[in-house]
């Protein structure tokens, strides 16, 4: 599952810690999501999509290759 979290975060000039604080998760979890090591729950996936103002299906691509691999 590919995601665009890192791409969207860097485009907005946000740090991983800032995104983590906005999502209510740890910085380590943001890193794991960006690297494709952790698939977020549906509520967290929606929170991520809302944070970056994108539909969830654009934020997470089930047909894409895993991020960070």
């Amino acid at each position, binding site marked *: 599952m590919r995601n665009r979290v890192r791409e969207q975060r860097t485009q907005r000039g946000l740090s991983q810690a800032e995104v983590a604080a906005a999502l*209510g*998760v*740890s*910085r*380590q*979890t943001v890193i*794991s999501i960006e690297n494709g090591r*952790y698939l*977020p*729950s549906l509520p*967290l996936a929606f929170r991520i999509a809302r944070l970056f103002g994108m539909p969830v299906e654009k934020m997470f691509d089930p047909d894409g290759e895993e991020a960070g691999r």
Partner: protein
Amino acid sequence: MMSFIRPRWRKPAWTVFAGAAFAAAWVIRGGRDWWLWVSLVAIAAAGRAFAFYAWGGEDDDLAALAGSRADERQRLLSLRSRALAFNVTALAAFTGLTVAVAIRAGWWWPFAVVLGVTGLGYLCGLLAYGIAEEGPADDASPQHQAPSPLSG
């Protein structure tokens, strides 16, 4: 249950509670050196509680668990680790029970108790976390008997 205690204090509080219970057991047991064992338990519990509190302020996954502020991924990590611990415990208990029975040892029963408790805990988990909440299939009623478009 522990929500009235601040998250960072929860694990230290549990540690102090468990240490006090274990120390009380040594007091009740009595004997010549009971005060020595109570002192050792108190020192170990206090050290562990302090370590949990200090560690809980760090910025990593284990610290988040120690500080009772884990997010969903960290809770999943903990859950998987506990599941692994359960499996290892059950396997060790089964191995111990098998060996004890084979050599006709009298200490077979603690293994049987551990094996029984882990099995019972697993069954309780299945019941508590929703295995019995499945309802009937939504095509069970006559109004849902239309052929599926997938059935050709």
